[in-house]
């Protein structure tokens, strides 16, 4: 990408203004970040930056302790076991002297990417009246993405472990039970005195342990995709959030299939908030919600829901369904002959429904994901190969497993830069803002909000349950907390923001 092109994109970000100008401009900026997130090569002075233990002298040889809690038994173990394997893979690589490419972005807040260069980045409407993409960079090849990036991201770190010390994974089983989660977090923090904590699938689990994390100022990574809004000086959220997924999805669906959307969402926090995001941002692309329905997590029989959707005749259906009971919707809708295109932010990438259900249950599903096993890049193929060598029986690698993987590598890199595993110092180093080359692409850790900008791809599932990527955004920021003025470096906070604190949502969604 040339400088001129960068300029043209900045212009886009500044255009567009009318009644809701302030809000809309930020929205546009968030999406336009796609255009910005490219082209900055890794500064040469950081290449080969060698933080080996020999250079700085290890004070101790005791292992670095990484606390890890996931659900290895009980209802949520489906995801927990995947994440555990991700952690084991990352830890074994670190102890074998490997690291992922990546470096701090000097000058906190500057969006940069270390290696991913799009040939044809998407161009967002220049009229300033809508968010339509006028040029999506040309047809995407079904077997490869349109931009070039490093094929191999795993390189030598120059030392075994972290600062010459072995990285030890203290993994414990949350049993899908929040009281157990609290006990385990306390044990890892107070008794084992872990240097870093990586934990949490469900938002409820994160909220269960976050007060404990804050009480002891524990460095904590939450690696799951979630509903967004956590502004916590001790917590780093490395998964994608609503604004990164909902808006690209809605935009594509309205453009391609039409404005009328019917939302069915799980009746709990994640579903309700994601539905609120959909409702708040669909007017920007001239779409509208013609029906919205929240379904209790215990419902597993969907004939009534299907009947109501049929009566409403939408152009497409937003399915924000979560949990094993809700997954039954897809085969039941397919059997009832429901042929509407579907969009989601959770399916395929997390629960690999397209592998678990017989075709064509998930046909015509669209999801803006940051990672799933099928991402057709050389670096991802290499990652999948490494994973499957270590865990040959694993059925799938989902986004939260990949997040856990790169997060642990990110921690190791930050600790090397800090020359210590002292939690406050590692936190300061993480707050340099980092770009790390993950299997999904370049991920940028935004320092002020402790969230990550991710490359986003629109995955499409066909009748035979093959996944193709029909559009990609090289990088989308998690901009909502920035918009609310969160800067955890200057003003530490320890709360979770909800959309009712944002006046924009009051206009459309609440």
């Amino acid at each position: 990408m040339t400088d001129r092109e960068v300029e043209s994109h900045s212009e886009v970000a500044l255009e567009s203004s009318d009644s809701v100008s302030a809000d809309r401009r930020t929205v546009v900026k968030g999406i336009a970040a796609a255009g910005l997130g490219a082209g900055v090569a890794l500064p040469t002075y950081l290449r080969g930056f060698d933080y080996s233990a020999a250079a700085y002298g290890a004070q101790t040889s005791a292992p670095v302790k990484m606390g890890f809690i996931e659900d290895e038994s009980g209802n949520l173990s489906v995801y927990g076991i995947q994440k555990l394997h991700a952690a084991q893979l990352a830890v074994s690589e670190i102890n074998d002297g490997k690291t992922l490419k990546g470096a701090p972005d000097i000058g906190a807040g500057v969006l940069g990417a270390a290696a991913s260069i799009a040939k044809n980045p998407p161009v967002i409407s220049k009229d300033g009246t809508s968010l339509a993409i006028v040029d999506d960079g040309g047809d995407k090849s079904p077997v490869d993405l349109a931009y070039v990036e490093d094929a191999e991201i795993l390189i030598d770190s120059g030392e075994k472990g972290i600062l010459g010390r072995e990285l030890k994974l203290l993994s414990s089983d949350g049993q899908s039970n929040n009281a157990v989660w609290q006990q385990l977090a306390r044990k890892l923090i107070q008794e084992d005195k872990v240097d870093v904590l990586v934990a949490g699938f469900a938002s409820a689990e994160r909220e269960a342990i976050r007060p404990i994390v804050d009480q002891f100022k524990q460095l904590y990574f939450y690696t799951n995709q979630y509903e967004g809004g956590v502004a916590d000086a001790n917590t780093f959220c490395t998964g994608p959030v609503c604004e990164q997924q909902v808006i690209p999805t809605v935009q594509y669906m309205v453009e391609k299939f039409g404005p009328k959307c019917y939302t069915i969402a799980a009746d709990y926090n994640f579903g309700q908030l994601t539905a609120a995001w959909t409702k708040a941002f669909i007017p920007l692309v001239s779409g509208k919600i013609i029906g919205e329905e929240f379904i209790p997590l215990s419902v597993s029989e969907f004939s009534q829901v299907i009947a109501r959707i049929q009566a409403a005749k939408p152009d497409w259906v937003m399915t924000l369904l979560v949990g094993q009971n809700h997954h039954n919707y897809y085969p039941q809708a397919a059997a009832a002959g429901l042929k509407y295109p579907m969009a989601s932010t959770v399916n395929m990438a997390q629960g690999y429904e397209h592998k678990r259900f017989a075709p064509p249950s998930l046909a015509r599903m669209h999801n803006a994901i940051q990672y799933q096993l099928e991402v057709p890049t050389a670096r991802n193929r290499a990652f999948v190969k490494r994973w499957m060598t270590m865990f040959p029986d694993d059925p799938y690698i989902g986004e939260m497993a990949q997040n856990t993987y790169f997060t642990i590598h990110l921690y190791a890199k930050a600790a090397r830069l800090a020359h210590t595993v002292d939690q406050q110092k590692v936190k300061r180093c993480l707050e340099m803002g980092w770009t790390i080359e993950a299997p999904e692409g370049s991920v940028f850790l935004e320092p002020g909000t402790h969230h990550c900008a991710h490359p986003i791809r629109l995955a499409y599932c066909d009748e035979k349950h093959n996944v193709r990527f029909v559009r990609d955004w090289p990088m989308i920021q998690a901009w909502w907390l920035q918009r609310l003025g969160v800067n955890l470096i200057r003003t530490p906070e320890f709360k979770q923001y909800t959309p009712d604190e944002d006046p924009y949502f009051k206009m459309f969604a609440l």
Partner: protein
Amino acid sequence: MDVIGVVASVAYQFCTNAAFLLLCALGLIIILGMMNIINLAHGELMMMGAYAASASYSRGAPFWLASIIAFVVVGMFGAALEMTIVRRFYGRELGALVVTWGVSLVLSQGFLLLFGPFMPPIQIPEGNIALGQYSFSYYWLAMFVVAALLVVALWWLYNHTDIGLQARATMQNPAMARALGVDTRRIYMMTFTLGAGLAGLSGALLAPTTSIMPFMGQQFVASAFITVVVGGATNVVAGAVGSSLLLSLVKTPVGFFLGAFLGSVALLLAALIIIRLLPDGISAAIQRRLDLRNRIR
């Protein structure tokens, strides 16, 4: 809105709801009626049925054969369970409840460890009919027919075979039946085997509409228990049918017009009220009616 479409849609939902409740409850209510034991591992037996069906289906067996295999496999497991554990709890209803709960914990987590988090899916038999703006799945309609056939088969088994006669005798008065030479232990074992087998069959039949995983049993238990409680244990077949039809009659309109959550609330409230009015369940009321008519005749 086209009137025919809405009517057909509500009727269709009524049928699917009733078929779902009946399939969930059938195995449970047979065991309950015969030996007054609530089998809390019922959901896990359904899960095993789905696993057996999935395993045989993915090895090339057609779906109907896979369902029969599920019936046989889970029935055999039920027989083993009866001989090793359940047998010791006859006459101790609450003890049986607790021990089967333990079995359910072991089964669900054990299956997770043995077979991993998911089984290969079963393709839902395709096809649907469209009526106005609504379309209806053949599969659920077929489920309704299958559920009805199962009920008829059970009715025939209980009323027109020797074993059925012995079973009814055992149900009414075990001591007297024993005195008349009925091997009640054998009857108990056969009942438990049949109940488990039916749970397995139901699990297999519902498997195409769901994801097959170790904790899938949990989604059926609440519906199954409510149906059984409302049905009561006096007359197994009548209770199951009456209760699933009645509950579906409550759930369908509430769920359609007021949403899914209020649909399940209505289900529980209906159950509480019916039990307050008919403490022994619908089946006792139906049985009284039948007895009365026989006496008049």
